[in-house]
C-alpha cells in the first residue's frame, strides 16, 4: 500500500479555481469601478482592495496539525474539516459518505478522539491535532489494524474502510473492545453497506487480543 507521506502534502492553493465567488467579486468590482470612476477604481482594483474585503468576510486563518505536520490554512467558516482534508490538503483517504454524521465514513481523530469530520467546522480545529487514515501507517509499515482488516477481509467495496479503521483504533484505545457485543455497540457509528461486519469484528478482536500497541 502506497503511503502518502505527510511531508509531501501540497501547500494550500490560495488561488484555487473553486473560489469562484471571489473571482466574481473581483471581476464585478472591477467592471463597476471602471464604469463609474475610471482613475480611482482602476487603482483600487490594481491594489486588490475589493478582493481583500471579500476575503476578510469569507476566510479565516487556521493552524492545526495533521498527521504530525503543522498546517496553516485560510478557510471559509462553513468549510468542514472533511472538505478541508480532502480538497485543500489532498488527503482523500477520509471519505465523504452521507455528509450528515450518519455513516461514519469520515471518521478521523481530533486530539485523540474519534469524531465525524463532516460535522466538524474547520475553524473549530484551530490549534488541535488531527489524525487521518494516512497518518496511521509508519512509512511502508501498516498499522496493526490495517493489517488485520486485510487479513480478515474487513471490507468489500472499501469505501467505509478508512472510517471503520479509524473508529476501530479508537474503540480499542477507549477500552470498548472487550467482547463482540461491546465492539458491535461501539462500532455502531460506522455503517458498512456491503455488510462486512463479522469480518470487521474479527479484525478488531484479533488486534485487541494480540495486545498490539494501537
Amino acid at each position, binding site marked *: 500500500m502506497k503511503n502518502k507521506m505527510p511531508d509531501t502534502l501540497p501547500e494550500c492553493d490560495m488561488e484555487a479555481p473553486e473560489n469562484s465567488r471571489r473571482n466574481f467579486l473581483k471581476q464585478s468590482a472591477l467592471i463597476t469601478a471602471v464604469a463609474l470612476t475610471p482613475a480611482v477604481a482602476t487603482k483600487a482594483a490594481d491594489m486588490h482592495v475589493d478582493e481583500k474585503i471579500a476575503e476578510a*468576510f*469569507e476566510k*479565516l486563518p487556521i493552524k492545526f496539525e495533521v498527521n504530525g505536520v503543522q498546517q496553516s490554512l485560510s478557510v*471559509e*467558516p*462553513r468549510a*468542514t474539516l472533511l472538505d478541508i482534508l480532502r480538497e485543500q490538503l489532498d488527503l482523500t483517504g477520509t471519505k465523504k459518505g452521507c*455528509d*450528515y*454524521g450518519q455513516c*461514519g465514513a469520515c*471518521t478521523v481523530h481530533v486530539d485523540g*478522539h*474519534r*469524531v*465525524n469530520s463532516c*460535522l*466538524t*467546522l474547520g*475553524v*473549530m480545529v484551530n490549534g488541535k491535532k488531527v489524525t487521518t487514515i494516512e497518518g496511521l501507517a509508519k512509512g511502508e509499515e501498516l498499522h496493526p489494524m490495517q493489517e488485520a482488516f486485510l487479513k480478515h477481509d474487513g471490507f468489500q467495496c472499501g469505501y467505509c474502510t478508512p472510517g471503520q479503521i479509524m*473508529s476501530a483504533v*479508537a*474503540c480499542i484505545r*477507549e477500552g*470498548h473492545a472487550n467482547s463482540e457485543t461491546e465492539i*458491535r*455497540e*461501539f*462500532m*455502531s*457509528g*460506522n455503517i458498512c453497506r456491503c455488510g462486512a461486519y463479522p469480518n470487521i469484528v474479527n479484525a478488531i478482536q484479533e488486534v485487541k487480543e494480540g495486545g498490539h500497541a494501537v
Partner: protein
Amino acid sequence: MKQFQYIRPATQQNVLDAITKPGTKIIAGGTNLVDLMKRGVTAPDKLVDINHLPLKSITPSKTGLHIGALALNSTVSENSLVLQKQPLLSMALKAGASPQLRNMATVGGNMMQRTRCSYFYDTTMPCNKREPGTGCGALEGYNRMHAIFGASPQCIAVHPSDMCVGLAALDAVVVIAGKKGDRRIPFTEFHRLPGDHPETDNHLAPGELIVGVEIPDNNFAKNTYYLKVRDRQSYAFALVSVAAALDISGGVIRNARLAMGGVAHKPWRLFDAEKSLIGKPATEASFKHAAQIAMQGAKAYEYNAFKLKMAPGTITEALKHSASLF
C-alpha cells in the same frame, strides 16, 4: 451552506454580549446545528463558538453533582462520579447517537438539539416548526416516529434526546446565565410542548446561555435502568425509551422516578405513574399498573398506534430491569 460569520469571544460575558443579535446562534459540538445548516433548515448569520469557555467540569457539591454545559456526552457517560451517583444518566447517554457524535456533543448542546421529524428536515414539505404557518406535514403524513403525548395540531414531532430523558427523571436543574444574572429552572420545565408555537422548543430566552445542569443526590443508583426500543440495535432514535429509577427497601418501593422518550415534544416525565408505585411491592403487577396510569391521555396517529402498546410494555420492562426481576 449559506455563508456566516464565525466568532470566538474570549469570555462568558463577551458571549452574552454577542448572542443578543437576531440571526446569531451558539455553536458547541455542532452535531445537530451543522447538520441543519447543511440541509438549509437553519441559516444563521453569525455563529458564536463557546467551546473555550471553562464549562467542562463535573464536580460534586454538598447536595449533588454539577455538570458543566460543555462536558462532552462521552466524558459524562464514562465519568466515575456519574457512574457512582447517577448511573441512569450514563446509561441514557450511551444509548444515544454514536461514539463519534458523543465525542463531539456537549450536555448543553444535547439539550438544545431541535425537537424534529423528517418533515422538519425536508425543506420541500410544510412544517410549522421550520416555517410557522405552513402546516404540519406529519399530521396526515407518515407519522410512525411521532408523538403520542402532548402534541398539538401544529406539531407532532418528538424530542430525540436520550440524555434529556435521564435528566428529566433525575430531577435535574438547568443553570442558565443571562445579562440580568443567573437563573435556575427544573429540567422538566426547560423544554416545552408545541402548542401554537412549535417553532420554539424550550424556555431558554434569547440572549441566555446554559452553563450547566445540577443533579441532586438520590437513592436510585442501585435500582435504575434505561431501556430504549428502536428499529435497529444501536445508533437509531427511540421509538420509545424509558428511564426508570427506584428506591426499594425490604421489597417495597420507597420512591420512584419515570420518564419517557420518543413520545412527546419534550422528555415526558410520568409523575402520576411514579406516585402509584410508592409504598407498593416491587413486583411486575405494580409495574404494569403504573404503566397503565402512565398511558392516560395518550393519542396515536395513523402510523404510530403501535406505540400505545409498546410504551406501557417498555415502562414495565424498564421497571423490572431496575428491580432486577430477571
